[in-house]
């Protein structure tokens, strides 16, 4: 592997159609993604169907999150007060650069040049590991999937299952090579054993940990992490110093709100009734857990997202990944095509907004608007609506002489007048004539369209316009005729 940075950076990533084309050529990746998303989706469907009040739970989740976002300033300050009271130290970071600076300084101040990490998409968002590395600090990912990616110099393709695009054989190869275990078997327990041995030593040695947060509880100043492997529990209990970094959107008003969230998330994320490990810690306690605890609250454009009335529901996301598993586009391309740690439908709306529409403008179009994401979202984010809203923002940025904009304008004029609509139908028949070929049955088909329309005829034919439109048939026959 080369030493170049392996990061998903929306400011430099190719557009979605270009990146997707590359991914579509990777047959192994496509099989892995199809298989994994199907397994999780089926598990999810099973455990969701067990709950008769699932729709009420979703609605409760939506209301909690919407209320929180509407009063975010209040709850963040409440969290800061209560966390501080419990012995935590709260830091505020305006953007990624500030967050990285703060975390790096805190690690150095802890006296360690290594950290163990709990899986955190927020740290992936800001490429924290590279900042730590540049400061001479070695970061060890302890979540199994993140470990696989780190050892394989790969990037996360899913919010919950970041190495979803890799299969068992590929993981075994990475472990054999990177852990120097040529004899490693390929059973799941062989791989888990190898990871356990590799990580156990880090857990016991490293004195400083970095975590993300599923929730920051304003009422108590507590932080909540939910996970499946227990590595998170190790990271938040064994080290002397714990540094948690969280987006400001992660706050939850009351402890009691976990009742709703901890029912919604495990079922949505991994198809489990309950996460195996639910860790909630509040400040520091003598003789129990880290002696120093920091929380870095990061904005990084979330305030701008919040300011947009139609886009702000994006911040309600609880990072369960259900939309990714349900998305037929993600199913074909996997997550890396989205050029951001936030892939799939949620990424298609979150990433361009976090980039304040300066980058990732192709992402709102990376959807057929089929609505499968909205259907499974545990907090009812209307992702298709937000996608359309962001498409509008992209269109607003377009040059007035843009070919698509001009064509749309022309069609808009046609649709506004019956006379022009009729003329366009007649004209369409004349214009398509040179492209039409007759098949054996005498019906006409177009197998090659010019320009951008050629995307259609890559794999599809287009039937010729009918000799007689419905309108013409109707007028000939007369209204009410039988």
């Amino acid at each position, binding site marked *: 592997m080369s030493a170049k940075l392996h990061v998903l950076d929306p400011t430099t990533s190719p557009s979605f159609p270009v990146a997707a084309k590359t991914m579509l050529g990777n047959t192994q990746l496509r099989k892995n993604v199809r298989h994994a998303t199907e397994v999780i989706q089926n598990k999810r469907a099973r455990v969701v169907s067990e709950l008769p009040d699932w729709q009420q739970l979703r609605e409760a989740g939506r209301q909690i999150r919407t209320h929180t976002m509407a009063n975010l300033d209040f709850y963040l300050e409440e969290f800061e007060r209560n966390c501080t009271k419990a012995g935590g130290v709260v830091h505020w970071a305006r953007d990624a650069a500030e967050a990285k600076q703060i975390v790096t300084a805190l690690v150095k101040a802890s006296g360690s040049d290594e950290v163990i990490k709990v899986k955190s998409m927020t740290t992936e968002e800001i490429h924290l590991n590279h900042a730590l590395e540049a400061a001479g600090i070695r970061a060890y990912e302890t979540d199994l999937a993140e470990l696989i990616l780190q050892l394989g110099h790969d990037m996360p393709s899913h919010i919950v299952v970041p190495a979803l695009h890799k299969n068992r054989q590929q993981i075994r190869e990475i472990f054999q090579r990177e852990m120097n275990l040529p004899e490693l078997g390929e059973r799941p327990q062989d791989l888990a054993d190898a990871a356990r041995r590799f990580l156990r030593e880090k857990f016991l040695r490293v004195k400083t940990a970095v975590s993300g947060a599923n929730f920051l509880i304003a009422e108590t100043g507590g932080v909540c992490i939910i996970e499946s492997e227990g590595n998170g529990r190790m990271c938040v209990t064994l080290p002397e110093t714990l540094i948690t970094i969280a987006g400001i959107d992660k706050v939850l008003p009351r402890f009691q709100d976990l009742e709703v969230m901890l029912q919604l998330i495990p079922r949505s994320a991994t198809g489990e009734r309950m996460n195996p490990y639910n860790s909630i810690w509040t400040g520091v306690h003598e003789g129990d857990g880290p002696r120093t605890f920091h929380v870095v609250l990061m904005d990084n454009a979330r305030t701008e997202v919040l300011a947009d009335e139609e886009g702000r529901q994006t911040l309600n996301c609880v990072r369960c990944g259900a939309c990714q598993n349900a998305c037929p*586009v993600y199913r074909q391309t996997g997550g890396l095509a989205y050029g951001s740690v936030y892939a799939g439908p949620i990424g298609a709306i979150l990433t361009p907004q976090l980039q304040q529409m300066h980058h990732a403008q192709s992402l709102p179009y990376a959807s057929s608007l089929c609505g499968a994401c909205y259907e499974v979202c545990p907090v009812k984010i209307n992702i298709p609506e937000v996608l359309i809203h962001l498409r509008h923002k992209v269109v607003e940025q377009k040059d007035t002489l843009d070919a698509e904009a001009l064509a749309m304008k022309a069609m808009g004029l046609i649709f506004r007048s019956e006379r022009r609509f009729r003329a366009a139908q007649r004209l369409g028949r004349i214009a398509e004539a040179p492209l039409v070929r007759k098949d054996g049955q005498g019906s006409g088909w177009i197998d090659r369209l010019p320009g951008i329309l050629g995307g259609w005829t*890559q794999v599809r034919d287009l039937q010729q316009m009918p000799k007689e439109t419905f309108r013409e048939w109707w007028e000939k026959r007369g209204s009410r005729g039988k």
Partner: protein
Amino acid sequence: MVKVLERLGHTVEFPAGQTCCGQMHWNTGYQAEPLPLVGQFVSQFKGAEAVVVPSSSCVAMMRDHYPKMAAEIGDAKLIKDVEELLPRVFEFSEFLTKRLGLEDVGAYYPHRVTYHASCHGLRNLGLGDGPQRLLKAVRGIDLVEIQGLEQCCGFGGTFAIKNADVSSAMLAEKTTAVLNTGAEACTACDNSCLMHIQGALHRQRTGVRTVHLAEILASEEAVA
């Protein structure tokens, strides 16, 4: 559709000034162009007892967006008109099953058919198994269920052009599922999905055709 409705004893009118619901513009991000179409729709259909539409996605466009569009225009009368008209707008199968409470509309179609549930019909309109119930009541039909019924065919309007490769991959899965049923025809409540699926079925010379639900329901046994 006209044939079925008239067979059931309804009077069908076709307001000549109608054109397009504006979905393509709206969903591609062009929100100014379709705004005038809301008023146009209202003026064309205002007097109707029921407005029946042979396309689930057009109905979804109207239901999901017209109230918001009317509000954006800021015309109080238009807002009220849209509010009054929308409950009378039905997708074709929805009109038959929910408004009229029918399943058997007297059709005869002696073919092996599979039904594709268009996303907007399935999720936005909540058509449920209405279309299948209509199909099951057709005499002579051999209705076979498709695998992955809830999966999008990959059309998505301009998505099929802007993301042609991904759309093609999605379509490949859908046509494989259609072919696996052994059906000779694939039906749906939305011509845009059908045009998409048909495009690949024809390109691959599969010998499987697409047919709108209304065409099946309009078919009758020839009386000698």
